[in-house]
């Protein structure tokens, strides 16, 4: 017979709510910490998990649309191709000087790690765009000849829009975090089949998280307007994955 962990009486009643995903975040953390020390609750969780895991089986079956598979597989195949293209280098860890090290134990494949590489990250973002996964939504025009596109951003809580008018385009951000210390935001233009082109537009945010940044030149033939954070002075090649992606079309 196992001995209950500390404060078992306080936590035991949470087993059902935990398995149903009904605990508040903080409470869930507390319960999981309790599970580490309480074999009685662990056993009950393992036992009742069978019932909780069976719940999805009870729902009426609904066929997903064929387009959904097409969208997902477009992204997956694009990323698989990128992986294959980067494969040899991806498996050769670099030494401290940035040179490929001698072949040794192969690293486990990691698409997440690969996506952290700037060129691949940008290509992946564009693969998602092609699939509609990140496509921006057109919202009401700001004037007769102005239209506004909602941009995708990885910055939690931020709202970024691309305003396209007759005299040019600009990014308008609200609640956008400042770039990391020593870095600035840089605007890039991505055209089909070409690497992202750097622009001279470097910007930061005001104290209230707002910012406006002009997008230089014409957007004709531009797939996406991207923003990355770069060292002060900007970069010729993106060093990070985009924090903002706006699709003008």
């Amino acid at each position, binding site marked *: 017979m196992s001995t209950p962990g500390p404060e078992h009486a306080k936590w035991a009643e949470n087993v059902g*709510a935990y*398995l149903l995903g009904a605990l508040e975040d903080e409470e869930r953390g507390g319960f999981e910490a309790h599970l580490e020390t309480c074999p009685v609750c662990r056993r009950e969780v393992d036992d009742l998990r069978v019932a909780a895991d069976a*719940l999805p089986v009870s*729902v009426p*079956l*609904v*066929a*997903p*649309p064929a387009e959904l598979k097409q969208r997902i597989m477009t992204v997956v195949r694009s990323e698989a191709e990128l992986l294959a293209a980067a494969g040899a280098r991806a498996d050769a860890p670099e030494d401290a000087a940035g040179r490929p090290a001698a072949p040794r134990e192969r690293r486990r494949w990691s698409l997440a790690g690969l996506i952290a590489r700037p060129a691949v990250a940008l290509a992946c973002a564009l693969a998602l765009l092609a699939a509609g996964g990140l496509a921006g939504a057109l919202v009401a025009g700001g004037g007769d000849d102005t239209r506004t596109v909602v941009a995708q951003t990885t910055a939690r809580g931020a709202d970024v829009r691309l305003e396209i008018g007759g005299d040019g385009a600009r990014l308008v951000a609200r609640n956008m975090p400042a770039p990391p210390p020593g870095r600035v935001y840089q605007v890039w233009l991505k055209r089909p089949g070409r690497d992202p082109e750097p622009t001279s537009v470097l910007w930061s945010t005001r104290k209230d998280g707002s910012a406006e940044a002009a997008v230089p030149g014409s957007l004709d033939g531009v797939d996406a307007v991207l923003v990355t954070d770069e060292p002060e002075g900007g970069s010729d090649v993106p060093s990070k994955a985009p924090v903002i992606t706006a699709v003008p079309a």
Partner: protein
Amino acid sequence: MSDHLRSLADEDLMQLVRRGQASAFEVLYERHSQAAFSLAYRMVGSRGVAEDVVQEAFLAIWRSGGRYERSRGSVRTWLLGIVHNRAIDALRRSFVHEKRRASDEGLEEMLETGERTDVEAARHEEAATVRAALEHLPADQSQVIELAYFGGFTHTEIADMLQTPIGTIKGRMRLGLQKMRHALGTGQVSLG
């Protein structure tokens, strides 16, 4: 796509997905997308949002195939757990409890109409077993289980909604799952 891939178990397909094999992922998608979409649709009540949930979940699975651990249960259970979490995120992010509930009647035209395979027939049987276990619970227990699991409500929200002490709500959830577990027995319902 090769018959060889289709003959592999989910766990073996995950090994190939981990190495970046898109065709192995496609087999997994074909095998589980209906269950995933059905769960998402049951929870969010909108086809468009359900599609977003399933897309997010499957792409997360593709990109983190290495995180699947055989010891934590079947691939199907793991995958549906990810869909469930994404659907809860969607509910709490934008719908917060104003979603339209999908009625079973309204779904008829969307139900799969293809020829039933043995696997699908077995899953229909499993679904009937789980539904029966759920339906045989006292109403106050099945209610809190449905609100929590499919509605994405926390126990605090459910307690407010039903004007019932939190301790009582937690007790009903636990007791309901215990009874379901007993009704399902050992090995009667498998999510593998």
